[in-house]
């Protein structure tokens, strides 16, 4: 980014989410629900970072991040469900028993072990992203074509996950978990811990993405975004770069999904329908594209607004959100971050009245 990295953002961010919110909860000012809700927003923010990498920095509009997010969630959900089933002395999760299945499907087997589950949660999305990316990038599909094909892919996956035959719970998805690694998911301290873990992972992911975007690799990505043909004339293997960043973005989405599951307690194919996959891109667009802070801010803010508006204005919240989208795009084309920058400049200009300080 051209603008100087102002540590104020980081300080403010950490102060609010790492100190203020937990303190608010511990002092009884905020309920554990608030903590847990914000923990979930962090997971979205992690996925949003991935979208910013691939869309904001590389210029590939991928609409299947919601699917990768779900892959992560489903993996952990399968593990939790198996643990619960085994603890209850059964062989099969409830929904399978009702569907008259007598043996655990083969692909469920590895999810008995937490380690394997973690590995598969990352491995499967990565592999999937690699294959899809390889196929798509090799045939030089880009722009809108890329967006619509990935959207169609998500749609196809959504349809498949909705089926009962896939043994992933169909429309109802997977739900009703009690423990993770022996910790009771409904206890407040576990929720706080998950919140803190999500926060820490978000910070780590941010740092990771920050390093990427400022490395040579990141510069190449931005060059691909700005002019793909020119960078390929310069003998860069564009496909390799795109593929790498696609896999990284998929991994980030999956990590978000993995953390999301224990805090929400349910994963359904609804998380990856057309609406959900467009919304994920919206977070980044609203926060500010090509701006990692913007991605995080966008994900947090949009979801926060979604939560409170559906409670406060149950009848009209769609208007509020809709107008927000339109107005942001029309007047603040750099998203919230752009808006913040402008306000910052205005404030400092008003304070010092000296034009030199603004630049």
């Amino acid at each position, binding site marked *: 980014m051209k603008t100087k990295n102002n540590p104020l953002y980081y300080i403010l961010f950490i102060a609010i989410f790492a100190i203020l919110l937990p303190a608010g909860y511990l002092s009884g000012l905020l309920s554990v629900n608030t903590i847990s809700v914000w923990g979930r927003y962090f997971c979205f923010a992690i996925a949003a970072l991935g979208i910013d990498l691939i869309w904001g920095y590389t210029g590939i509009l991928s609409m299947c991040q919601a699917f990768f997010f779900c892959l992560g969630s489903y993996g952990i959900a399968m593990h939790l469900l198996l643990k619960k089933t085994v603890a209850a002395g059964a062989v099969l999760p409830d929904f399978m028993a009702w569907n008259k299945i007598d043996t655990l499907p083969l692909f469920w087997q590895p999810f008995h072990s937490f380690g394997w589950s973690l590995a598969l949660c990352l491995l499967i999305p990565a592999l999937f992203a690699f294959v899809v990316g390889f196929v798509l990038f090799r045939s030089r599909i880009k722009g*809108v074509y890329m967006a619509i*094909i990935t959207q*169609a892919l998500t749609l196809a996956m959504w349809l498949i996950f909705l089926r009962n035959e896939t043994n992933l719970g169909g429309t109802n998805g997977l739900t009703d978990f009690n423990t993770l690694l022996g910790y009771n998911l409904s206890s407040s301290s576990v929720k706080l811990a998950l919140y803190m873990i999500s926060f820490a992972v978000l910070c780590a992911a941010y740092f990771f993405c920050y390093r990427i975007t400022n490395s040579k690799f990141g510069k190449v990505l931005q060059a691909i975004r700005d002019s793909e043909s020119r960078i390929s004339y310069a003998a860069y293997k564009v496909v390799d770069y795109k593929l790498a960043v696609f896999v990284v973005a998929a991994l980030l989405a999956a990590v978000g999904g993995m953390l999301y599951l224990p805090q929400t307690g349910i994963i359904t194919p609804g998380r990856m329908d057309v609406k959900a996959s*467009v919304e994920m891109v919206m977070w980044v667009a609203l926060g500010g594209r090509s701006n990692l802070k913007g991605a995080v801010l966008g994900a947090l803010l949009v979801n926060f607004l979604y939560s409170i508006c559906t409670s406060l204005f149950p009848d009209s919240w769609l*208007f509020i959100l809709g107008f927000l989208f339109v107005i942001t795009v029309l007047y603040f084309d750099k998203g919230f971050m752009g808006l913040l920058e402008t306000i910052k400049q205005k404030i400092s200009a008003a304070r010092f009245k000296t034009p030199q300080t603004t630049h």
Partner: protein
Amino acid sequence: MLMCCLLLLPLKVAAQDSASIYTAQLLQPTNDSVRTQAIGRLAALRIPATFPLLMAINDKKLYLLDHKAVTVDSKPTGEGTYRLYSLYPDNRLLTNSSGQPLLLPLSALQTVDIPRADRLQLAGIAPLMNLFSNDAQKRILAYTQLKNAGDSATLPILQAALAKETNADARRTGKDVLYAARLYSATSTATAKAYIDSIGDNWSDNAPVLLRNYAKAGFLNQETAHYAAAKAISLEKRYDSLQRIQNFFSGLSLGSILILIALGLSIVYGLAGIINMAHGEFMMIGAYTTYCTQVFFTHTLGIPQTDLFFLAALPLSFMVAGAMGWILERLVIRHLYAKPLESLLATWGVSLILIQTARLLFGDLTAVKTPQLLSGGWQVSPHLTLPYNRIFIIVLTLLMVVFTYLMLYRSRLGLQIRAVTQNRQMSACLGIETRRVASITFFIGSGLAGLAGCAITLIGNVVPDMGQTYIVDSFLVVVTGGVGKLAGTIFSGLGIGFFTKISESFFQAVYGKVFILVFIMLFMQYKPKGLFPDKGRVAED
């Protein structure tokens, strides 16, 4: 036969008399048990002349008008009034003094309440009675129910019913029963074969099953059994080929819907290079315009049963959706031509707003009444019905494609649109008002979506988020065909329509859809820029 009738005649007269007595008892019973008994007797007598009366009892549609038993049509004529029929001794339409059908509301009639237990006595002869029903569907059902009851007592009744049968379907079903009864009672191979042929020619829905059963039973001899089996197979083969035509037609109709939706999208995308997520919502606007037109015609103008509203709705939905598109272009899209991906966000926001507005205005599930002209179907052959509404959509699509073609390739505006699509700056330099062209294009594109919405009310319902159902599909059509390419849109729309229908007849509907998506992905490998990519230097950015 004649002898038989003559012999029966005195008996019949006696029965007629007792029927009159029972009928009178039934309508003015001295007590409940008298009525119960009267109905029981009437049911046992099985006199066709009393059937309309018994049917009216069974359907709970027995009324008294001036102490005479009457019944009403199943549907009111429009303003809540019904046509009346006398029941016994003759069954005819009642007319007023000027010879017009007598129309009365139910409130003008005295309802005769027959207890449920009494009505149940009629269950046994329900099929026989229904042979004389005014409702063709009921007669068809009655014939089907008679299928295995071709005994000597019911056969004459069946023949009597067939003699005055007017509905082709019903006659076909009825003949089937008659032939089957004759076939099973046939004593010579030649007669049996003749009846097998008759059944084959008649070709009812049930014919293959019937023939197969006959063949399995080996009723007369091996020869007839083989003959019946062969006939059944040939009938099924013919049926299968008709089924293929039906599938082809389904694919064509699905394809034309997709084309209709994608046409506007393709033009707009080609010109402005923006992903219009609100395109589906313009379709929704068109559908609601149709709905409003209908409400306006029936409630405000007070014309209840007319197809006129649909004729009015077609241009109206185009104009209203087009106007909305034009406003959207003016207010939002205009500022975003340089930023295609931002426009995705803005139009998504617009679509949210439009959906919620529709929900607040109209609240819930609504559906447009299909125009009388377009309901039902064209009976090509006994087993091939092509619904009129789908034929209409195909024709409409054809017209719109021609319109779009003429507009794009044979008009000055089209030339300008194509110029702006190819190179906005250069066109501007050459003196084309790119903004005006963009506005008009948006108007036409959105109008086409509105028209698609209007057409879709013929096959589906009108809900606020109906646009979302079609949006991904129509994007796929645009992408597969090549952005902004008329021919591409048509080919890919039809292609996707056919493939979906073909795969649906092998897989279940869900997998059919997945199969199509995978297929398109693989297709894009081969043609990454769609069926009709830009040629030459334009292709590389």
